């Protein structure tokens, strides 16, 4: 392999340097029908799962075919997407906020041809390349994060848990039988890059062991005061430690009982790793939402405190998620989001019908605000 220069001259980094030009202007990327009718759409209809039509004031229509995307996408895969868009969509496409691909065309016939084409594209392993779905009162793609594929703090994998879950709920990706939209998110550690804190169902990677202390290196690679300050529960104190070789070094001590394994110290200091095969696993949350429709946005609640990392397919996790969705489908009313359903029937009933154990872990004990989640009424169901 020979180094190929882009034109950049390391000796003169500032020469001809272009900075602060931002993203490309959206106008350059709009399909024609979009550019023409922007701001003039009057209504839309979901024709079938994954296929929408939007109608403009002047009668123009745009048909959208939404396809699931794994989010990890290879250049080769994206080139295939481009081929499709060139063939059916005049060379335009978009991605949704949930990492689905949207192919748009302005005629019904093109849409039908496109649909047929997409449905027959599969990976050698058998999975669809472009499953159509994810609209209306169904389940869309999972917003998620890096996991073991790229990050240093995950307590589980992201892509694997997502693949296993989407396989499980796939029929609901291609259907609209649920009472309302059901949004699933995944984040591989408490940093929650997947913003799972307000999803109907959320998969969260969680550590359960306090950091291991690499005393020999700690003071060399970390700033002790920053590590100390990083801890939300004040579990970390500066300390002097005698190494096996007799040398005394500056380091930190962790009060294990005060630690809730958030990993914030590890973010500040590489000599405090947390991960552990037995300690790490999955927390399931449920009942959050973001839309302001009918009810205000809500946080997700922890419903399963821990599930081990059953690689490669996390069956206990997917079964639990499946069960929750079935019960929701059965129990909720039309338009009722997951969390509105649980609030209506009461969380005790939710644990009942979903056959989930309620354990001490699920009672909030983080700071003063925890109190507001306890039951301050005699109203409860047996």
């Amino acid at each position, binding site marked *: 392999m020979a180094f190929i220069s882009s034109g950049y001259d390391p000796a003169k980094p500032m020469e001809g340097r272009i900075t602060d030009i931002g993203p490309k202007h959206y106008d350059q990327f709009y399909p024609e029908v979009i550019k023409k009718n922007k701001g003039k759409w009057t209504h839309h209809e979901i024709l079938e799962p994954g296929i929408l039509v939007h109608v403009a004031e002047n009668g123009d229509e745009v048909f959208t075919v939404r396809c699931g995307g794994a989010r990890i996408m290879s250049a080769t895969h994206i080139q295939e997407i481009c081929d499709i868009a060139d063939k059916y969509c005049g060379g335009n496409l*978009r991605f949704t906020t949930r990492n689905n691909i949207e192919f748009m065309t302005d005629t019904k016939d093109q849409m039908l041809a496109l649909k047929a084409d997409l449905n027959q594209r599969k990976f050698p392993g058998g999975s669809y390349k472009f499953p159509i779905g994810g609209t209306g009162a169904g389940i869309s793609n999972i917003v998620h994060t890096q996991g073991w594929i790229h990050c*240093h703090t995950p307590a589980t994998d992201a892509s694997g848990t997502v693949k296993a879950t989407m396989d499980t709920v796939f029929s609901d990706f291609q259907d609209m039988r649920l009472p309302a939209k059901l949004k699933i998110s995944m984040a591989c550690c408490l940093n929650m890059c997947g913003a799972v804190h307000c999803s109907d169902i959320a998969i969260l990677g969680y550590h359960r062991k306090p950091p291991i202390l690499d005393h020999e290196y700690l003071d060399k690679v970390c700033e002790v005061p920053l590590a100390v300050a990083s801890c939300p529960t004040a579990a970390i104190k500066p300390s002097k430690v005698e190494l096996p070789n007799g040398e005394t070094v500056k380091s930190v001590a962790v009060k294990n009982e005060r630690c809730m394994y958030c990993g914030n110290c590890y973010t500040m200091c590489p000599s405090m790793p947390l991960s552990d095969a037995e300690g790490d696993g999955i927390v399931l949350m449920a009942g959050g939402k973001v839309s302001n429709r009918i009810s205000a946005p809500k946080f997700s609640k922890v419903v399963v405190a821990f599930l081990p990392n059953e690689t490669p397919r996390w069956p206990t996790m997917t079964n639990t998620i499946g069960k929750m969705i079935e019960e929701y489908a059965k129990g909720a009313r039309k338009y009722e989001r997951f969390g509105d359903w649980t609030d209506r029937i009461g969380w005790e009933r939710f644990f009942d019908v979903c056959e989930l154990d309620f354990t001490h872990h699920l009672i909030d004990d983080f700071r003063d605000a925890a109190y507001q989640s306890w039951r301050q009424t005699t109203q409860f169901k047996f």
Partner: protein
Amino acid sequence: MAKHNTPLLDELESGPWPSFVSDIKQEADVRAKNEKGIDFQIPSEACDDLLGLLELSYKDGTTHWKHGGIVGVFGYGGGIIGRYSDKPVEFPACASFHTVRVSQPGAKYYTTEFLRQLMDLWQLRGSGLTNMHGSTGDIVLLGTTTPQLEEIFYTLTHDMDQDLGGSGSNLRTPADCIGQSRCEYACYDTQELCYFLTMMYQDELHRPAFPYKFKFKFDGCPNGCVASMARSDLSFIGTWKDQIGVDQAEVALYVDGTNPSNAGAHKGRDWGAFDIQAEVVDLCPTDCMKYENGELKINDKECTRCMHCINVMPKALKIGKQRGISMLAGAKAPIVDGAQMGSLIVPFLPIDQTMNKQLADFDSEEDWMEYLEEKYAAFVEVIEAVWDYWMEEGKNRERLGELMIRQGLQKLLEKIGMEPQAVHVDHPRTNPYIFWKEDEVPGGWNRDINEYRKHHAR
């Protein structure tokens, strides 16, 4: 033949959902075969080794990535996440595997031309793997080496007119919902505002000057399709001030079943005949609707613009015409003080409905930006007041939301010159622990003990 045995990962190739394993293998294969004859600038076995490393994680249940070192491009404080594996010997082709965050275009519309160009660059200079897209919104190019960073940046800026996105204690790449470009609910042009602010704050996006990260997101209406309320330090959500438009004839077509409820979103189940009373009127959170004698009446004064009725009957009901934006502040993930939703800080900033000129109407992008500066002046003012406050008072690694909790919502309102109103709260305080300002209390705070003792014996 694959370089590594990946029996665990292989199990993720079956099932209907697109398999990332199959896809990575596909790219590994492309690189191995190299039919295009690319002179790969990072090891051609990058994808193979990535699979091998990942298989190891599936076996031993832990990650094998280390803390990112500080890598980046000259003059920028963000846009690149450094990443090294802790198994560099076993999996040398992905020993260093940095990501490049590329600022995505508005609402993630693309031309295939652009994507192809980008993928060519990435197959040449990176692993060929991406995230489309990262959770913040960027195009995430996954896996390259340090020497390639400047090269990639050079090609992006020189050949593609494209910049990096954000990371670090910067403004992060703003993101928007599809909005007016294809959605009838949009109360403002999310792409325009998102783009304008992104361009306006390029410096803040690339050069860390903040206590911590800062995110903007733009939702065209309260449905919240870009989840701004949950994921952005400042969220901009479209809304209106006047009446919901009602087309009674279309209402009738919902009632008689001609129009599908919620634009067909519930087609997968037979929910019985549409019942406007039960499905619309009774579910209105403010109880401000009536359906009588075939007519739907809305008491708009009490409506809180939750979108429900409009969502259910999009052909009959229309967002109001006097449009603007509600701004909420402080949303974030749980680290360190617990997660936050955005809190309402500016209930309504109107958007001038007569200022509709597009980029094409101007001679240059600069002229257009100037026009937008006028159009959005009120927003810029709020944003900069928020930043001034946060930069003054925020501690290192303290998100805006955490500062708000530490100092109180009223402090932020004061700093942005916003009169506190009842709409700023769900309910007034339940504790009477009110802090007064000394100048609000007649006589001030400094009192003389001797004077006091004259009237109150010890």
